[in-house]
């Protein structure tokens, strides 16, 4: 039976992937999927409303899961529809995360009043919004680096409430029950209304009521235009004009000149009415007609935003995380039982997870039109991808499950890091002018990040050497030798990538700023990885470090790499202010500490190592 184990686990993995690929079905009569695919512009790029819903939820409450007060689970799109169109309900949704007790005290709330003891609704905050604003003003006067945790929490919550207000004002006027009816009246009276206002200004006879109505509408549209989060009205001259997307309020202001309310604005107002009154059939029909209209003018844009909505639903990196964990467990067990069968099963699962991550990275590259690494989030994906790629190579040659264990460990860890980085919002960001160079992103950034990945992998292999050697009897001379060779080989690659990547970075700096090297923190971080890897190689060549020393040195490489990757980014933030410690800083500190513990463990006399104790 056990010879079918690899096949069984491979099929299990494939089933997991297949399940994630099944298109999401609508949970109600409303075509929520089609709604989620509608394109809008936020943060300078066209994205589907589905992405807006998910990233907004993550920003507000660090999770995409949200429930109504009655306990029913909402999909992100359902939640977004209520926020956009039916604030009477959305105001009661507990989606504002507040962790700081002093901040809760401002609102007179206790954790027990919140969902999961930390999420609160707008209703719960409403009465003290003015106080929040006052506190936010006080905190804003403090430089962001030296704010106290309380001030940081205030600024964050204030921004989140702002985001909520901006979403509410994005497609319809939030203070009107039936915006569609209002727009139809407006459409019929706008031409006469504009003349009335003109006549009034010229001091001629005019319809006073109509003029006042127009002025009031103008004021409201202007406020909507200022507030709105989404640029939702597509340009009239086709998809080439990405700068032509407008906010509903701004395009309504143009109505005073054109005399015609743009069709997209009418569509949103119509959707709002049908969503609030529960007319699913009409809702779906309006969506279908609007989409058919978009298909004509925006085929490429729609193709991309459809694909992105689909990508959001598939969540390939989530499935890959599960597969890495499973592979890790199988590979560890294979050291105790059925090495051949479980080892192969783990190897195949790692391969599957890696292919899935590859597909995910390629999908992101295609969506963004960029090389794989553009921000911290994508660097975490890529570090994991490159390290697991090396693991597959090692496992292919050695077949001792060490590669699979390392792959499971690094793959899982990097995707976990990526998940936490994704809580900052949309991970497909636009590149600032200085970084807007696909050539250098593809060469320097990719090589340097590959260097991080290889250095981490060497460190994790070092950990495996120490743990197996000290705590188990499984590190026989053959395995020890193989592990040591693996570490050495990976360090060679790490040296190559980090050295070439660092020099390419210098060349990029020379191309952009006229200096090759400036000793700035990020450059220094990269240089430290190069120096460390070089030190490791020379220590080995000089016979100063043998197997155990190499493993311990490689583990120290983890500390150096995590410093370069994240530590230097915190320099401006964490280190020169004593009151403030970012959560990420504690994680970094914890990681460094536990690596140091392993190095201390590694320096135990060999007689204390279970594997080397003469039994």
């Amino acid at each position, binding site marked *: 039976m056990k010879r079918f184990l690899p096949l069984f686990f491979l099929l299990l993995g494939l089933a997991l992937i297949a399940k994630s690929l099944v298109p999401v079905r609508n949970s109600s009569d409303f075509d929520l999927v089609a709604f989620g695919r509608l394109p809008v512009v936020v*943060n300078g790029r066209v994205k589907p409303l589905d992405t807006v819903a998910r990233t907004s939820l993550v920003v507000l409450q660090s999770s995409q899961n949200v429930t109504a007060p009655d306990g029913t689970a909402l999909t992100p799109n359902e939640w977004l529809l209520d926020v956009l169109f039916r604030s009477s309900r959305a105001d009661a949704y507990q989606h504002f995360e507040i962790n700081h007790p002093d901040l809760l005290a401002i609102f007179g709330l206790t954790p027990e009043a919140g969902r999961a003891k930390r999420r609160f609704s707008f209703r719960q905050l409403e009465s003290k919004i003015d106080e929040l604003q006052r506190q936010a003003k006080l905190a804003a006067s403090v430089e962001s680096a030296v704010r106290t945790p309380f001030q940081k929490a205030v600024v964050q919550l204030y921004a989140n409430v702002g985001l909520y207000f901006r979403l509410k004002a994005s497609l319809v006027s939030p203070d009107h029950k039936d915006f569609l009816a209002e727009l139809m009246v407006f459409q019929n009276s706008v031409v006469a209304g504009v003349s009335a206002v003109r006549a009034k200004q010229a001091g001629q006879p005019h319809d006073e009521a109509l003029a006042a109505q127009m002025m009031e509408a103008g004021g409201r549209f202007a406020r909507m235009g200022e507030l709105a989060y989404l640029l939702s009205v597509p340009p009239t001259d086709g998809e080439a004009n990405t700068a032509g997307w407008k906010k509903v309020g701004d395009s309504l202001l143009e109505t005073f000149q054109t005399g015609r309310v743009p069709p997209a604005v009418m569509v949103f107002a119509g959707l709002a009415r049908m969503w609030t009154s529960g007319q699913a059939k009409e809702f779906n029909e309006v969506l279908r007609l609007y989409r058919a209209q978009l298909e004509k003018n925006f085929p490429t844009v729609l193709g991309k935003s459809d694909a992105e909505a689909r990508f959001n639903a598939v969540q390939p990196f989530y499935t890959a995380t599960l597969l890495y964990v499973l592979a890790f467990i199988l590979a560890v067990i294979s050291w105790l039982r059925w090495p051949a069968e479980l080892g192969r099963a783990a190897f195949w699962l790692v391969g599957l997870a890696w292919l899935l991550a590859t597909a995910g990275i390629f999908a992101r590259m295609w969506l963004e039109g960029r090389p794989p690494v553009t921000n911290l989030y994508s660097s975490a994906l890529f570090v994991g991808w490159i390290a697991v790629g090396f693991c597959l190579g090692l496992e292919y*040659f050695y077949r001792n499950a060490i590669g699979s264990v390392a792959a499971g460990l690094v793959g899982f860890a990097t995707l976990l890091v990526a998940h936490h980085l994704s809580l900052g919002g949309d991970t497909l960001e636009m590149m600032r*002018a*200085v970084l807007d160079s696909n050539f250098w992103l593809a060469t320097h950034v990719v090589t340097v990040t590959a260097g991080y990945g290889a250095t981490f992998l060497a460190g994790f292999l070092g950990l495996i050497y120490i743990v197996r050697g000290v705590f188990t009897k499984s590190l026989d001379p053959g395995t020890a030798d193989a592990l040591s060779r693996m570490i050495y080989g990976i360090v060679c690659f790490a040296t*190559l990538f980090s050295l070439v990547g660092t020099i390419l970075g210098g060349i990029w700096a020379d191309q*952009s700023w*006229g200096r090759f090297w400036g000793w700035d923190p990020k450059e220094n971080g990269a240089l*430290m990885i190069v*120096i460390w890897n070089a030190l490791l190689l020379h220590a080995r060549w*000089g016979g100063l470090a043998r197997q155990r020393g190499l493993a311990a040195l490689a583990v120290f490489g983890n500390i150096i790499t995590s410093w370069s990757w994240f530590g230097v980014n915190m320099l401006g933030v964490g280190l020169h202010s004593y009151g403030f410690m970012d959560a990420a800083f504690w994680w970094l500190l914890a990681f460094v500490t536990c690596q140091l513990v392993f190095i201390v463990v590694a320096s135990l006399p060999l007689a204390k190592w279970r594997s080397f104790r003469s039994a």
Partner: protein
Amino acid sequence: MSALYRQLRDVFVSLKLTVVLLALSLILVFASTLAQVDLGIYAVQEEFYRSFVAIWRVGGLALPLPGGYLVGGLLLINLVAAHLHRLKLQWRKAGIQLTHSGLIVLLIGELLTGLWQEDFQMAINEGDSKNYSESFRLYELAVIDTTDPKFDDVVAIPDSHLARATVVQHPKLPFRVVTKTYFPNAALARRDASAPSPAAGAVPIATQGIGPNVAVTPLPLTYKMNENNVPAAVVELIGADGSLGTWLVSPDLGAPQTLTHAGRTWRIALRIARAYKPFSLQLLKVTHDIYVGTDLPKNFSSRIKLTTPDGRDDREVLIYMNNPLRYGGYTFYQYQMDSARGLTVLQVVRNPSWLLPYVACIMMAAGLLLQFGLSLLAFIAKRRVSPTT
């Protein structure tokens, strides 16, 4: 061969020394990164890298560290000595040798850059044309003969001469320039003319030009990224018949001061040091693109007209992020911009050794690829033979 020599040689060619030096350089780089938070990047470069001993201040402690020159120099000696000592021309060693030669090229390149690189900036308003760039940090005392309306005759004295109080006698000047006082950084303020003159021993006030109306307060030197040192000096001009008086000069005064002597008219000013170019750049248009609906910058670009007096070059060029103009041995980078005021600031760099890092990068990458590639191939071949070990 004496025993001492052999001992020294063994130290200098040893890999142990390499590892120690690499570890020291690691600590140096780490310390300098942390020090930047307080000191700023410029002071850190001076204290940690352009020095033999660096002092790392952690809390109240002051730890001495070997500085960049010491560690770098010893590494270079170690590297060269080891290669000369163990020099063998073998394929097996070619990768390592190529890599280390690349490293030497890189270090030499950095050394030459430090010696040769000139860094200037050029601020141009839309429609204006400039044929000189200005230093980021250096100043000069310009004494300009404006008697002939057709041209100005400029004598520029670097501020380092003022700082050393050198007496300057230039063939074009009918007077000597003697520095009485020099402040590397000072603040100026209007001085109440009716107030009693400062006590003896205080800052000597100039007798000519605007000097008598200005109070000078010396300031400590600043190393911050966003602050500049603004010098001030009092200079005395001494002609054949004796002193013409003393003048206060500082870039903060704005307009140059005028004086007449021996029938000629001069303007005198302490200004940002200029470097004239045999061509001129006219700014046609600045563009600052942002991503729609955000204030995230997408691109900064300057459309420039490049002309030479001989008329050989007369063309339009576009300078934008990651796309500098290379012309006449200079490189012009998009540096800063104020699109509302139609102002662009280009960074102007002359670095004759700019190509060396590129060469070094290729050498080191090729060397490592060769070395590790050969090892990998050997490893795979070995695994093929005995896949069980």
